């Protein structure tokens, strides 16, 4: 035993000396290169047991096969992560029973029990062999089963993942009336499968990486090879590989780690729970990132216009969708400057309000002790509190609080003379408007900016609001999402791209992919306009006539 220990140590040292070329950044807390699988199964198991000491959910199962049970096999897996069925039925069953029933020649068995086992005995589907013990540990911790074979320097990793997960349910944050009701779950494989169902093109690639030193989270890059802009792809890969953090808990971490401007309140990537949105973006030439343990996929790059698009727009008729889009933009503006305009008009420029309304506002504000700015601030703050509270309450109480809070508190405040009724209406309308923005991240940005605008309005009236606008627009104009100006296509105007922003032009018009993405393959649809169809009809008729 001691000799073997020394031998192992010697081996370790030798490997350590060869470590200089290793670029793997995951090694920061490990000095040695990952040890290789030994032939001696006991050494391997000992290594594993050492690394996974005190983790009592790791199970070690040894099996003896062969005519005289002379070969030891060891299965290592984590209880809870594996599908016990696979292990019982497909691995253990075939190993223990079927190998005995199979009749290769005894010499073969003696010579090459491993190959026999690997090729013929395991009826599980997805297997691979590796020789790196740390990778083996990672696989075990991800839910695979490791099969060690005494005398063989490789370990077989059998995919046996099967843990409890949430079933595919409608996405909670992005409901639509018409459209698919599947939302992502927390398992990467399920999510990639969901997206695959929309795109069956062989050029649709799902490239996986692992990020996070301790979490070793799997993430997948989804793109279509002959459409996507290659520079963008390599940029994203580079950024992802530069991430050096302990754990990736959610797609939000990835988002914040690879985005360019983290000062900005505006999201530079879209996040979505819907596979159809991911599929649509990928078809346009964008890149999607799926992250294990997160039902939110990231879509890169994005512009301000995409934050206002809902998948439903494309499934319904274009006129309605156009009007709805315009409504959303208006709602965004209201959400942004609603209270500020109230403050500016009542405190600074009452001449701008119609006379009767001005008198009415003055009348209802009799006895209100606060200036308009404080009033607005109080109401807005109260509303934000209600909103925050509403998220955490269990469902049955949550609904009630919403109604109670909105109506009763507002009403009571009015009757107590703290705020004026018009203020309540303004705040309510503002809040409702901010909910109609499809992207929650964008809505948060507007919520935040609303307070800044209120401050501007309180100090400098309408001029302050205009200044605020200029400052915000300046920021947006400079902001880039991975090289794409954030305000495209309003900036660097490209008429064909505008068709999908403020309005939703008829599907016939979407013949080309968004020019701003600079994709390889520009055309996405044949020209199906009625005139064209007519001319096709005429052509066809002519051909028929000619034939006869």
């Amino acid at each position, binding site marked *: 035993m001691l000799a073997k220990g020394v031998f192992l140590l010697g081996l370790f040292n030798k490997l350590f000396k060869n470590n200089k070329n290793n670029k793997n950044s995951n090694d920061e807390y490990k000095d040695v290169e990952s040890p290789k699988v030994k032939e001696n199964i006991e050494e391997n198991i000992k290594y594993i047991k050492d690394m996974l000491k005190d983790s009592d959910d790791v199970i070690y199962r040894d099996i003896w096969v062969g005519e005289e049970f002379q070969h030891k096999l060891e299965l290592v897996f984590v209880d809870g992560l594996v599908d016990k069925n696979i292990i019982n039925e497909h691995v253990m069953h075939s190993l223990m029973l079927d190998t005995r029933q199979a009749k290769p020649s005894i010499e073969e068995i003696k010579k090459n029990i491993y190959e026999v086992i690997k090729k013929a005995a395991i009826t599980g589907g997805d297997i691979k062999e590796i020789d790196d013990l740390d990778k083996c540990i990672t696989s075990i911790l991800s839910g695979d089963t490791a099969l060690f074979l005494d005398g063989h320097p490789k370990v077989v990793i059998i995919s046996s993942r099967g843990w409890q997960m949430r079933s595919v349910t409608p996405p909670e944050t992005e409901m639509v009336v018409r459209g698919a009701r599947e939302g992502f779950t927390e398992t990467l494989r399920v999510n990639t499968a969901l997206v695959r169902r929309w795109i069956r093109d062989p050029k649709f690639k799902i490239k996986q990486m692992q990020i996070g030193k301790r979490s070793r989270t799997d993430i997948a890059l989804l793109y279509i090879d002959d459409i996507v802009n290659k520079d963008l792809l390599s940029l994203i890969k580079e950024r992802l590989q530069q991430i050096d953090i302990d754990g990736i808990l959610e797609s939000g971490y990835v988002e914040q780690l690879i985005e360019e401007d983290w000062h900005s309140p505006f999201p530079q990537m879209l996040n979505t729970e819907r596979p159809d949105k991911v599929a649509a973006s990928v078809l346009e030439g964008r890149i999607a990132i799926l992250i294990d343990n997160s039902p939110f996929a990231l879509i890169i790059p994005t512009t301000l216009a995409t934050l206002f698009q809902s998948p439903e727009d494309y499934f319904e008729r274009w006129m309605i969708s156009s009007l709805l889009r315009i409504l959303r933009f208006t709602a965004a503006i209201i959400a942004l400057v609603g209270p500020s305009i109230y403050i500016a008009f009542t405190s600074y*420029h009452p001449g*701008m309000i119609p006379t009767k309304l001005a008198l009415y506002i003055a009348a209802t504000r009799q006895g209100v002790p606060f200036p308009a700015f404080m009033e607005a601030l109080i109401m807005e703050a109260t509303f934000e509190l209600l909103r925050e509270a509403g998220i955490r309450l269990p469902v049955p109480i949550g609904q009630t609080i919403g109604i109670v809070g909105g109506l009763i508190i507002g009403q009571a405040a009015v009757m107590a003379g703290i705020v004026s009724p018009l203020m309540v209406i303004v705040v309510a309308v503002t809040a409702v408007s901010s909910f109609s923005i499809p992207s929650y991240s964008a809505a948060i940005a507007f919520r935040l900016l609303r307070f800044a605008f209120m401050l501007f309005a309180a100090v*400098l009236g309408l001029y302050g609001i205009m200044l605020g606008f*200029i400052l915000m627009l300046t920021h947006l*104009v*400079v902001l880039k999402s991975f090289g794409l100006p954030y305000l495209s296509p309003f900036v660097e105007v490209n008429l064909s791209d505008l068709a999908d922003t403020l309005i939703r032009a008829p599907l016939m018009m979407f013949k080309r992919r968004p020019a701003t993405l600079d994709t390889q393959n520009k055309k996405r649809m044949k020209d199906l306009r009625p005139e064209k169809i007519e001319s096709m009809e005429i052509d066809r008729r002519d051909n028929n006539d000619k034939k006869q």
Partner: protein
Amino acid sequence: MIKNNDKISENQLSILLFTTMLGAGILSLPSDVTKAAGPNGLIVILLGGILALIFARFIGRIASIFPTETFVEYSAKLMTKPVSVILSIFLVAYFLIFCSLNLRIFGEVAKSYLLNSTPIEVIMITLLFTSGYIVRYGIEPIARLSEILFPIMVIPTMIILLPAITDIDLSNFLPILRISPLMLLKGILLTAYSFVGFEILYVIFPYIQLENKLKKSINISFFSIIFFYIYVTFYTMGIFGYKETSVQLWPLLTVIKSINFPGFFIENLESLIMGIWTFAVFTSISAFHYAATLSLSKLIKAREHTYLVIPLIPIIYFMALIPDSIVEVYKYASYASILTLFFIVILPILMFLAMKLRDKGMKNSEKN
């Protein structure tokens, strides 16, 4: 998408020129025009605009021969270093003067119509710092901002004026062309002052992505702004007649005051127009600020123009405070228009001649 993002396209150039020219001048434009030319204001604007267009094309042509250099550099080539330095200093001063003029007029109007008791210094400083914020990023964001603000400025203004169409008395434009040619000429020169802004062409050439559409974009921008000026003056003169227009300080605002937008929820629209006009003045100020910063940085061979943005702010601010009253402001404005004449008319001609001389000189030296 991963394009070269430091340059502006020619479309952006034409919008940038438009918004830079559309500044504080528009408020007083109808008044100046009718004072000089009576009911022929529209014609004068058209002719003045075309004249300015010719000179803009001139400048464009000269600058396009040195597409990677700003005025500071190519004037040195054309007209000996010391002359060029003096001219460049004048150019910087020119931009600063117009920046501060715009700023001051804006402050005065804002104070009168929007914020009566706020000190004008506050109004000016805030606008100036906002301008500084965007100028630090370079010409491309300024151009992009102009692209976005352009429809926001122009479309509501044109729509708001529409209900006044019933108040227009077309006979206010008669009699046509019954004034002496001298008066007409004076009017034309006066309107040329409203087109100040395109001098930034002297310095922004290196940042334009040239695709052979330069002439077209300059043309488009000029015709758009001529159209816009004519549109606005048409309403003003149509409603007030030329005598009344000429005695008003800011006729455009008075017109807005008299508009009755039926059924709309905003009653007195002039505050709305003021808000929109803030954008117009801002684009002008930031463009001038940038041009001044850029020229100065080339002059003193600074590495980046961003260092100079903040130091220039106090200069512009104090220049804006020089005139004691609104009356003096317009007095200074009329002095400044002489400078305009120099930079728009005389200088291009001089440079053109210098260019021809240089070519001749080069040909001679080639022969020898």
